[in-house]
């Protein structure tokens, strides 16, 4: 969703690779009760009597001045562009109003739905997003479990420090490294040739793009992805393990019956977030890695939108596509959240 928005993706506060940060509960149920407990406290005076706005402003006017700049910021840089989405339904003229000139209904939506190229990038997005989810979601769990089995505290710390490192690299650096390693004379091809194969021009072959992209995504995100799992592993009651040992459960059975159920709430929350950012597959990275020779697999909705919307200045057409993408993202996250709440009881809110 928000990865189509340049700032959210580039500097969404760094901890999350995607714009949607996991600012949500590892222990969702607890958070819910806390939020519930707090409800209704705001806006009550010392006596517990209902406070009118006039009185609240007079009493806390200094506190409200803290809100002036942030609210102005949100209004201009978050809500104005949100309203600006209206140009998906209106014709926009450069130099004219930012909300467009005249209504054209679903003209731009029809334009991309009947465009064959749009469907190519749509399916590319679904496949790339699906593969990312399928591979990059479970691997941090596996790595966290592996780290958890280490007995040397110092060694564990070392592995963690090294595996977090790629997360701190700029996407430009990551893309640069990928392009160098996959170059005809790069390390990957050196290995291929050492095993008697022929060098492959990876970044000129559409059939290789997905493999290259997913591999780089694994390299960049898996280590950092373990943090929340490692945190939730420490909250599992160690008496459970002891009891299981006494019952004769081996390590594998302990992992399966105690560890995995123990981190399930974390898994669900992260899964929901991953599903929510499904359509926004690493826009910046794809943009940096792709080239016209491999558009047939490497072009995704967000990069297509960038090309037609910004580079060819078809603002309304691009906005319609962006809105479509954002709505799918919203539906996915709400849907995943609803299903998760019903099935496992874990949810974002």
């Amino acid at each position, binding site marked *: 969703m928000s990865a*189509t928005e340049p700032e959210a993706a*580039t*500097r*969404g*506060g*760094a*901890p999350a690779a995607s714009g949607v*940060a996991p600012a*949500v*509960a590892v222990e969702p149920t607890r958070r819910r009760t806390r939020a519930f407990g707090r*409800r209704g406290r*705001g806006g009550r*005076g010392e006596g517990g009597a209902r406070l009118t706005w006039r009185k609240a402003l007079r009493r*806390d006017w*200094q506190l409200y001045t*803290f*809100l002036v700049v*942030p609210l102005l*910021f*949100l209004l201009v*840089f*978050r809500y104005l*562009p*949100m*309203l*600006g*989405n209206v140009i998906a339904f209106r014709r*926009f003229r450069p130099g004219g109003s930012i909300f467009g000139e005249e209504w054209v209904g679903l003209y731009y939506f029809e334009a991309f739905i009947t465009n064959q190229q749009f469907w190519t990038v749509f399916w590319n997005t679904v496949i790339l997003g699906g593969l990312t989810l399928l591979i990059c979601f479970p691997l941090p769990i596996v*790595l966290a479990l592996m*780290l958890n089995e*280490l*007995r040397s505290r110092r060694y564990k710390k070392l*592995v963690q*420090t090294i*595996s*977090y490192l790629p997360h*701190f690299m*700029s996407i430009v*650096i990551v893309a640069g490294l990928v392009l160098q*390693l996959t*170059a*005809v*004379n790069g*390390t990957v091809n*050196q290995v291929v*040739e050492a095993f008697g194969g022929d060098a492959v021009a990876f*970044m*000129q072959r559409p059939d290789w793009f997905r493999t290259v992209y997913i591999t780089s995504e694994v390299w960049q995100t898996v280590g950092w992805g373990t*943090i929340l799992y490692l945190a939730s592993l420490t909250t599992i009651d160690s008496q459970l393990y002891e009891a299981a*040992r006494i019952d004769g459960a*081996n*390590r594998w059975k302990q992992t399966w019956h105690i560890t995995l159920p123990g981190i399930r709430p974390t898994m669900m929350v992260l899964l929901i977030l991953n599903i929510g950012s499904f359509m926004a597959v690493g826009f910046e990275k794809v943009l940096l890695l792709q*080239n016209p020779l491999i558009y047939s697999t490497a072009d995704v909705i967000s990069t297509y939108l960038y090309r037609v*919307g910004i580079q060819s200045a078809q*603002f309304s057409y*691009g*906005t319609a596509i*962006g809105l479509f993408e*954002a709505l799918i993202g*919203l539906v996915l996250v709400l849907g995943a959240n609803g299903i998760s709440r019903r099935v496992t009881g874990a949810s974002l809110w």
Partner: protein
Amino acid sequence: MTDTVTVDPLATGPDIGAVRREGGAIKDGTGYRVFRVVNALALTLICLVTLYPFLNLVAKSFSSEGFIAAGEVNLIPRGFNTATFSAVMGDPLFWTNYRNTLLYTVVGTVIAMAITTTYAYAISRPRLKGRTFFVGLAVFTMFFSGGLIPNYILVANFLGWRNSMWAIVVPGALSVFNLLVMKSFFENFPVELEEAASIDGMSTYGVFARIVLPLSKAVLATMTLFYAVGLWNSWFSAFLYLDDKELFPVTVYLRNLIAAATGTESVTGGAGGDAVQIGANIQSVTMLLTVLPIICFYPFIQRYFVSGLMLGSVKG
């Protein structure tokens, strides 16, 4: 006197972690012992694979073009030289852009911290009427936002910030994640402290500046790092809004270098002209110089990031 000898395990609270570490009453099976060795080896391998691209980068930075072109540079520099460093560092544009990155990072971080801190403090006070609304206003933007193009129109056309530093440092100035982390930190602040101060005649501003901020140094440092690293690494907004080379941050400088080199490569069909190889060489040095500050600070800042992420996820 057996009673005094038998220690109630529950009363003393046995160190179950230690029991687990020692293997407990039941000894680990051979299978598990094999697994542990394999596991440790696998993790070592993962570390090596993670580090390899960086080591390769360093090796390439000090190698001559000929050896890189022949595909002979892995971990050890071949044809050792520092000429590439001189070449890159001799480019005045590189230093201009490096300085820009520094400037954008500092200005952007200051703006972002100002907005985040004041907003977080206001919405963390239970006495603020309309608190839920003000929180919701920020949280909603996490799930739905104006897309790329409405943002672009706003910044480039409406505000006229094309080729302006403000396009880089202002639009991203609030991360809702950071806001929620800070809010939950301020919420744990004892209200009594502020009440006492206000009874002594201190204004809200005084409380904020002289009590709250000095006691929040840890979270302020963490948030500053979040924003600063994000800004240091960012490239897309600069790529989008800036045309003037003199204004680019170093990430865009690097991006253009890579794009130029790979562009040549696809034209020559991967046969590899000299231009490409010099590119690979210079690319490596530029990349190395760009990541150097991050790598140097990394060991010290890493734990702040981890603790910030945990704070946000557990209490957000």
